[in-house]
C-alpha cells in the first residue's frame, strides 16, 4: 500500500507536469515575462523583509524558470506533489503517538495508519488540487504555493512534538516565523498594505489559497473526529483506492472546466511573436484562424514578415485597424504584440513607449525581463547608450538574460558594429528620418512617412496598403501609387 501511495503521488505529479507542459505552457511564459528576478542583495532584501517575503522570493525564483515551460511545469509538479505528501502526513499524524514520531511514516503496519489512510487518502490531494486550480489563473503567483507548502511543513513538524511547555513555546516561535515566511495566509487581509504577494491583482482575495491553507487545520481535526469510525472501517485499502480515484476524477473535471484555453491560445500568439516564430504563427493561423485582437495582430505581422500581408489580408480574419496596429491599451498584456509590430516596422520610439507603458502597467509593480530587453534594444538603436547600459546592467543580474546582455554591451557606442548588426543596423535604416508629431493612434500618414523615409522598408509599405484596404480608403491608395510612380 505504501508504495502504491507513492505511485499515486507520482501519477499526480506526472499529470501536473503534462498539463502545464503540454496544455498550459504559455501561461507559464506569461508569468515569466512579468517579473525580473535579480541576483542582487538589494532586490532580495526588499522582498524578504516583508511578511510573506520568503515565500514570495522562492515563488519569484522558481518563476524565472518558466521561460522554459517544461522546466516550469516540472517545478509546479514537484511543489504540488510535495503539498500532497505533507497533507498526507497531517492525515496520518493524529493516529500516531506524538512522542514516537511514527506518524511520519505511511505504513500499514502502524497501529491504524493504513485504515485511516484508507478513509482519508483522497483528502490528501485536495490542497494540491486547490493549488492547481489556483495556478490556472495567469495572475496567481507561485509564492502562494510556497506559502501553503511552508505552512503544511511547519504544522506537520509541530504536530510531532511531544505535548508540553516546550511545544507551547515552540508554537509561539513557529507562529512568528511562519508569519515572516508566508505572511498572513490565514487571514484574508488587504494584501497591498501588508505586502503579501499571492496574486498579481493586489485587490483579489485568493480564496483557493485560503482554502488550501485551511486544510492545515481541517485535516487533523477531521481525522481526530472520525478516528473511531475510521479505525473500525473495513475494506480500508479499497476505500483508499476509491478515494484516490474519486478525487482524481473530480480533479480532472475541475481542472478541465476551469482551464482558460482561450487565454492560452492568445498567450501562444504573443509568445510566438516575442520569439519571432513567423512560420509557426502562419502554421497556427492556417489550422485555426484567430478571432481575438492579439491573434490577428500577430497573424498580420507574420504575414507581413513573409511579404504576404497585402495579397492575403482578407484570406484571414480581420478586425479592422484594431487587428493591424491597435491603439495601445493601458494594460500590461495587449500592448506587447503591438509593440513587436512597431519594432519590426522600425517605429522604434513608438515600440519603446509601448513597452515602457506595458511594463508600468504590471499590476504588482514588478519589472519584466522581456520589457527590459526590448527597452535596451530600442535605446541602443536610438543611440541612447547610457540608458541602454542601465537596462543591460540590470539584465546582467539575471539568470537567463545575462548572456544576451553580455553579448550586447560591447555594441554600445560602436557605431560600425551596430550598422553591421542584422537587426539593429536594419532597424536604424528603417526608422523615421524627419521629425513630426503624432498622437496615440497610428495613422496612414505615419505609415506613409515611415515608408518614404526608406522605400526599402517593405514592411511599412505592406502595413500602409493594408491600412488603406482595411479602411476602404481608395483615394489614399491611389495617391500612394501616384506618389510612388512619380519620378
Amino acid at each position: 500500500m505504501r508504495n502504491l501511495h507513492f505511485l499515486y503521488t507520482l501519477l499526480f505529479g506526472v499529470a501536473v507536469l503534462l498539463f502545464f507542459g503540454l496544455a498550459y505552457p504559455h501561461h507559464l511564459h506569461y508569468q515569466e515575462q512579468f517579473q525580473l528576478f535579480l541576483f542582487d542583495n538589494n532586490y532580495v532584501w526588499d522582498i524578504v523583509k516583508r511578511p510573506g517575503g520568503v515565500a514570495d522570493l522562492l515563488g519569484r525564483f522558481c518563476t524565472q524558470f518558466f521561460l522554459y515551460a517544461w522546466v516550469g511545469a516540472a517545478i509546479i509538479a514537484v511543489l504540488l506533489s510535495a503539498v500532497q505528501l505533507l497533507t498526507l502526513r497531517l492525515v496520518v499524524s493524529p493516529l500516531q503517538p506524538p512522542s514516537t514520531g511514527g506518524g511520519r511514516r505511511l505504513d500499514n503496519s502502524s497501529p491504524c495508519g493504513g485504515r485511516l489512510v484508507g478513509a482519508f487518502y483522497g483528502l490528501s490531494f485536495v490542497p494540491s488540487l486547490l493549488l492547481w486550480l489556483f495556478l490556472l489563473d495567469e495572475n496567481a503567483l507561485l509564492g502562494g504555493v510556497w506559502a501553503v507548502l511552508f505552512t503544511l511543513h511547519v504544522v506537520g513538524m509541530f504536530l510531532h512534538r511531544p505535548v508540553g511547555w516546550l511545544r507551547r513555546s515552540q508554537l509561539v516561535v513557529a507562529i512568528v516565523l511562519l508569519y515572516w515566511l508566508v505572511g498572513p495566509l490565514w487571514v484574508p487581509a488587504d494584501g497591498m498594505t501588508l505586502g503579501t504577494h499571492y496574486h498579481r491583482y493586489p485587490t483579489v482575495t485568493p480564496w483557493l489559497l485560503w482554502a488550501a491553507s485551511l486544510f492545515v487545520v481541517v485535516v487533523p481535526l477531521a481525522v481526530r473526529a472520525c478516528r473511531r469510525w475510521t479505525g473500525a472501517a473495513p475494506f480500508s485499502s479499497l476505500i483508499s483506492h476509491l478515494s484516490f480515484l474519486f478525487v482524481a476524477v473530480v480533479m480532472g473535471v475541475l481542472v478541465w472546466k476551469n482551464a482558460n484555453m482561450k487565454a492560452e491560445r492568445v498567450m501562444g500568439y504573443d509568445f510566438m511573436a516575442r520569439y519571432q516564430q513567423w512560420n509557426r504563427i502562419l502554421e497556427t493561423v492556417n489550422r485555426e484562424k484567430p478571432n481575438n485582437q492579439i491573434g490577428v495582430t500577430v497573424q498580420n505581422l507574420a504575414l507581413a514578415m513573409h511579404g504576404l500581408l497585402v495579397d492575403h489580408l482578407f484570406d484571414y480574419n480581420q478586425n479592422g485597424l484594431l487587428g493591424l496596429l491597435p491603439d495601445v491599451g493601458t494594460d500590461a498584456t495587449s500592448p506587447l504584440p503591438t509593440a513587436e509590430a512597431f519594432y519590426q516596422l522600425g517605429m522604434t520610439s513608438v515600440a519603446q513607449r509601448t513597452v515602457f507603458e506595458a511594463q508600468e502597467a504590471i499590476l504588482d509593480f514588478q519589472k519584466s525581463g522581456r520589457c527590459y530587453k526590448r527597452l535596451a534594444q530600442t535605446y541602443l538603436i536610438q543611440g541612447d547608450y547610457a540608458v541602454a547600459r542601465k537596462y543591460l546592467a540590470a539584465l546582467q543580474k539575471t539568470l537567463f538574460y545575462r548572456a544576451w546582455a553580455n553579448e550586447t554591451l560591447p555594441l554600445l557606442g560602436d557605431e560600425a558594429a551596430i550598422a553591421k548588426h542584422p537587426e539593429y543596423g536594419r532597424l536604424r535604416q528603417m526608422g523615421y528620418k524627419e521629425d513630426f508629431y503624432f498622437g496615440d493612434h497610428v495613422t496612414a500618414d505615419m505609415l506613409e512617412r515611415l515608408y518614404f523615409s526608406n522605400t526599402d522598408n517593405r514592411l511599412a509599405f505592406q502595413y500602409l496598403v493594408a491600412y488603406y484596404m482595411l479602411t476602404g480608403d481608395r483615394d489614399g491608395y491611389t495617391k500612394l501609387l501616384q506618389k510612388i510612380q512619380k519620378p
Partner: protein
Amino acid sequence: MRKHILPLVTILFSLLLAACGPEPVSDARQEASQPAIYPDYIGVTIPVNIAPLNFSMVDEKALLVDAVVADSHGHSLSSQGEEAVDFDLDDWHALLSQNRGDSLTVTVSAKYDDGWHTYRPFTLYVSADSIDYGLCYRLIAPGHEVWSKMGIYERDLSTFDERALIENTQFEGCVNCHSFNRGNPSRMSLHIRGKHGATLLTGDDGTVTAYNTKTPATLGLCVYPYWHPSGRYIAYSTNTTRQTFHSAHPNRIEVFDEASDLQVYDVETNELLLSPLVKQDSVYETYPVFSADGRSLYFCAARALPPNGSGPGMAIDSIRYNLCRIDFDPQTGTFGDHIETIVDAAAQKKSVSFPRPSYDGRFLCYTLADYGQFSIWHHEADLWIIPLPSPDGDTSGLQGNEAPSGAVGGAAARPLTGANSPDTESFHNWSTNSRWLVLSSRRDDGLYTRPYFCHVDTNGVATKAFMLPQRNPRRFYRERFLSFNVPDFVTGPARFDSRQAVRAINDDRRKDFGVRK
C-alpha cells in the same frame, strides 16, 4: 593545549583584520590629470552638513579606489573600497565642521591591473552656508500615461536615510504634485490622482483634509501648488493638458496645455480667489508662485493657440511662455489690475517655466527651453536667474555680472552657468536660507532625473552642481529606475501621518473648494 588556543585565535583574528583593512597605496604612478570620478564632485562647493560625498572611478576596470580628504590644519579622512569609497559619517561631518568656509583637498588613487595610479588632487569647498534638513521628492518612472509603484519620499541630507511619506501601494491611484510652505515640514499640499482623486492639505496640528478642488467656476482640478509665505493662501493653476510624441527627435514627448488658468486658494475661508486677468481664454497661465513678501504673484503666460489649433502636427512648438507678474494683496486677497511682463522670452523664441523666487527676495530662478512649459522632456532646457527689485526698487542683485549676448528678458537675466549641463535642467527649488538650489537634471543618462545642488552667492553666481550623495552612488543610481520628481527642501522630518492620509484618500468624502463671489 588550551593555552595555545588563545594566541592562535589572536593571530588568526589579527590576520583577518589585516586582510580586511585598506591596502596601502604603494609604487603608485603619479598622473598629471585629476581623476575621472562618478559622480563628478571635482571642485564643487558643498554645505557643511551634507552627507559624505562617496564616489567611484568612472572607469569600472578599477580594482580599488582610495581617497584621502585633508584640510590645511593637518586633519584627514580616508576611505578605500572596491566599488566606491565610503567615508565614515561621523568623521566626515567632523572634518566638514572643522573646515566651514574653508576648502578640502581630495587625493584619489585607483588600483588597476598594472598597479596603483595617484591623480592630481582636487578641491572641495565647504560653504559656511548650511543646507536644510532634508529633501522631499516623488519617485516615479519617466513614463507617459501609466504608472507603476510611486510615492513621496523624504531624504535626510546629512545621512543616506530615505523614508516613504506615502506610496501608491497604500491605495489605488497615484501621488502627484507635493508642496511645502517654505520647507515647513507640517504644511503640505499633495495631489492624489486616479479613482480616489483628491488634494490633501495638512494642518499645523497634523490633520489631513481631502479636498475636491474642481469647481464650476474653474477649468478643472487645481495643480502646481505654491504656498503664500503667510501660509494662508496657496496659488494653483488649472490645466487642460495633452501630450504628443516626436517621430525622430531627441525630445521624445511633448506635454502641453490646451487651456490653463490661475487661482489662489484661501485656506482660512475655503475659497478660491479668481481674477479675470489670470483667467483669460486667449492666454495660457501656469506655474504661479508668490514672491518672498507675498505681495506679487509670478507666473508663466503664453499666447494660446487658436481653437482646434493644437494636436498632432500642429504648432505646439510655437507655444512660448513669458515670465509675468501681478500684484496680490494678502490683506484682502485681491489681485492687481494689470499684468507686467518680467521676462519676454517669446520675443527671443524661448519659453519660461518653473519660476522660483528666492525666499530672501533677491532672485528668481526659472527654466528656459525652446518652447512649451514641460521642460523636463527638453534636452536644451537650462536654468536662468534674474534679480528681483528690492522693496525700494533696487535691482542691483546681479551688479558686476555682465549679461551674456542673447540674454533673454532683460539685461540682468542670465543663465545659471554653474548649475547647467548640456542635458536637461528643469524643476528647482531654493533652500530656506536662499543659498542653495536643488535642481532636477537628466545629465546623468539623458532619461532618469536626478537631484543636484549648487550654491548661489549674493551676486547670484552658482557654483558647479553636485549630485545628491549616496552611499554607493554608481550602484544606487544605476539600480534605481525612477526619476526624482519635484524636489523640495524641508527644514525637518515631515510631519505627515500616512495612515491618516490613506484613510482620507479611501474615504470618498471630500471637502469642496468654494469660490469667492
